[in-house]
């Protein structure tokens, strides 16, 4: 027997394995009153170039600006112009209108898959407003708000969702896995958290060239469990890379609640502490707080003061995707009881309280945006919907595996074209 203490096993207490369990399951009555929601405006705002440790109290706090009185409070108030606020409101509302129409399009069989970001619009739209247009975005899969905030054409998005013949990605990617080099929006991967070290690498490259561009990346709280998260934050702190890590803590990773990523023990913002980088925890449903936190991190990165981890505390109001049914694993009351409200409603009420917006204007805007989305859908449908033959030519399947087509892919391409000729002899052209 191995040497050790004299105690034998029989005298010791039995070990117990802890398997996390969310507080509420389907049918449960939800009570969020014990969630610590601090008063808006009370959180201190360190200077952007302050030592990282000055931010650590904020990792357990929650940066909030908008109060129940619909006014902005405290040092994190970004003091944005009414025009900017209206623009952010419009873009968030457009994301929501787009999500609703695309969800229905999937249900109507026009595509295979869709993912809404309902309730999380501020974490992408308002964060993007805090960045410069040439800063590089490394998104996860629920950041359609970043693209819309950068002015991507709705028709292009829908072409991608339909994988039709006008899809710029040639029908190769699952719907919503957008990419736009023109808008500095990196190609979305289905493998989670891989974008984090990539964002760090982009930031390192920019710094090594003496450039002024920074990188910002997004990840769900669930996939912070991936090794890539650790690699990315380690590299970021080692090289003081100008990068912002946005962790969208929307409480759910498909059916797994945030406890399976460690939320029972510490906040996600608190992970910054172990790496010695700045960390902020922000009310993700407060558009002004999201903008202010992202702007703080961007200014910090741009002044060579290093990376920031921002936890956006929010709630995934809808299912993970069109392939998911959240009523199977969580209480439907959660969405209604969520104590941080809805980002679109909160910004709308703020603008109304400022005398810069009205209920009538908002209703008119919603109608206009919905019409805009429907017009874009109509336009995109001219290029086809998924599975109705209007896809890219067969030969394109073999392009872009490499820069040039090697002999083995050339042979396989000929095979694919031959198969098509056998199957559809009347239409061999494509």
């Amino acid at each position: 027997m191995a040497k050790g203490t004299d105690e034998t096993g029989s005298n010791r207490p039995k070990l117990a394995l802890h398997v996390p369990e969310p507080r509420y399951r389907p049918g449960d009555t939800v009570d969020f009153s014990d969630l610590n929601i601090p008063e808006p405006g009370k959180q201190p705002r360190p200077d952007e170039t302050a030592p990282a440790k000055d931010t650590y109290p904020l990792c357990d706090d929650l940066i909030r600006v908008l109060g129940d009185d619909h006014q902005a409070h405290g040092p994190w108030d970004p003091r944005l112009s009414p025009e900017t606020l209206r623009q952010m409101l419009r873009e968030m509302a457009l994301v929501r209108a787009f999500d609703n129409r695309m969800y229905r399009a999937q249900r109507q069989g026009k595509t295979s898959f869709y993912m809404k970001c309902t309730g999380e619009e501020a974490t992408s739209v308002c964060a993007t407003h805090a960045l410069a247009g040439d800063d590089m975005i490394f998104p996860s899969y629920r950041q359609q708000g970043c693209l819309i905030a950068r002015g991507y054409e709705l028709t292009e998005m829908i072409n991608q969702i339909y994988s039709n013949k006008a899809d710029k990605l040639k029908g190769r990617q699952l719907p919503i896995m957008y990419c736009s080099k023109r808008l500095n929006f990196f190609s979305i991967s289905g493998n989670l958290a891989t974008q984090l070290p990539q964002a760090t690498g982009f930031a390192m490259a920019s710094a090594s060239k003496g450039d002024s561009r920074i990188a910002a990346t997004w990840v769900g709280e669930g996939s912070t469990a991936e090794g890539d998260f650790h690699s990315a934050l380690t590299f970021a702190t080692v090289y003081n890379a100008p990068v912002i890590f946005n962790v969208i803590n929307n409480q759910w990773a498909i059916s797994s609640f945030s406890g399976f990523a460690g939320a029972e023990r510490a906040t996600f913002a608190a992970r910054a502490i172990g790496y010695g980088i700045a960390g902020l925890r922000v009310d993700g449903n407060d558009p002004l707080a999201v903008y202010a936190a992202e702007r703080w991190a961007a200014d910090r990165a741009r002044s060579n003061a290093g990376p920031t981890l921002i936890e956006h505390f929010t709630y995934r109001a809808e299912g993970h995707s069109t392939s998911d049914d959240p009523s199977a694993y969580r209480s439907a009351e959660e969405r209604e009881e969520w104590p941080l409200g809805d980002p679109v409603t909160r910004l709308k009420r703020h603008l109304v309280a400022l005398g810069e917006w009205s209920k009538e204007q908002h209703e008119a805007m919603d109608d206009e945006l919905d019409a805009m989305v429907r017009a874009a859908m109509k336009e995109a449908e001219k290029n086809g919907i998924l599975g109705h033959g209007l896809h890219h030519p067969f030969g394109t399947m073999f392009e872009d595996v490499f820069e040039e087509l090697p002999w083995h892919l050339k042979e396989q391409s000929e095979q694919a074209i031959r198969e098509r000729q056998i199957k559809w002899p009347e239409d061999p052209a494509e």
Partner: protein
Amino acid sequence: MTMAKDPTIDEFASMVAEAGPSREMNMIEAINSALDVMLGRDDDVILLGEDIGYFGGVFRCTAGLQEKYGKTRVFDTPISECGIIGVAVGMGAYGLRPVPEIQFADYIYPGLDQLISEAARLRYRSAAEFIAPMTVRSPFGGGIFGGQTHSQSPEAIFTHVSGLKTVIPATPYDAKGLLISCIEDNDPVIFFEPKRIYNGPFSGYYDKPAKTWKGYAEAQVPEGYYKIPLGKARKVSEGEALTVLAYGTMVHVAEEVCRQKGVDAEILDLRTLVPLDIEAIEASIEKTGKCMIVHEATRTSGFGAELSALVQERCFYHLEAPIERVTGFDTPYPHSLEWAYFPGPVRIGEAIDKLLSE
């Protein structure tokens, strides 16, 4: 960013003529020279990896380069292969041409998701908006008493991945010319360096004194810039009796066994596994009618299986005997019994005898 189209063979030849005077280099010096030339030619080339900076790498391949080009072009990294490959993807997105070093091929596995799901697929999934023009250098193969975690030959993992090129040199001259081609290539390349022949060619007779590259024509390496095209095999010897398909260390072992046995073998050093020089393979087998494939990696689903299938599919009516595959065994690489694992002269000799007896 976009490089010119690959030069023709004739253009390559004139490039070599312009590459300046040659001197004798071992494979480490040749690799160092390739990196030096590329760091000097292209400001977007950047080197990163564990211990490669001030120290110059555990095999010294990057010695002196940090001093010459500075800490922001040649630097050490945390011990994280996922991080090394992941940041290299991001650097490529910025427009750099990163050359990450993975200290041993055996350590590459934590970086596989970034290589397979990201670097290899980025061009395709973004319809060529973003590319990953990185060259991942890594020493591979056994024969140095490295035990099972410093001896592996994982090339078949990468040849199986669409979107990756896999390149393996067998001489100092090829190592430099191929590495420069890889760095200038706009696709991700796995560049495996056979560490058993870093310092000299290896005959497979491990009990004989080790040789250096001194005096070998293949160790005469131009000091300047030249390229060897990817996808082109090297004909090591002309022959009529059988064709040997090999790469890396095994080229030298097969060559020595054929010499000892007096076999008139045509030996092809494949140099690039993907894209493969299928024309050279077909032409040789059509001439000899017999084929022996040699690699150090484990046998099952090894690259030899792919070669064997290709030869069977394309040259069946020229074959006069079943194809012979000589490989490592399907075990981890054992420390004390590494020469029992290694596909050495006895295993190769037996395969040759079988082929020639048909």
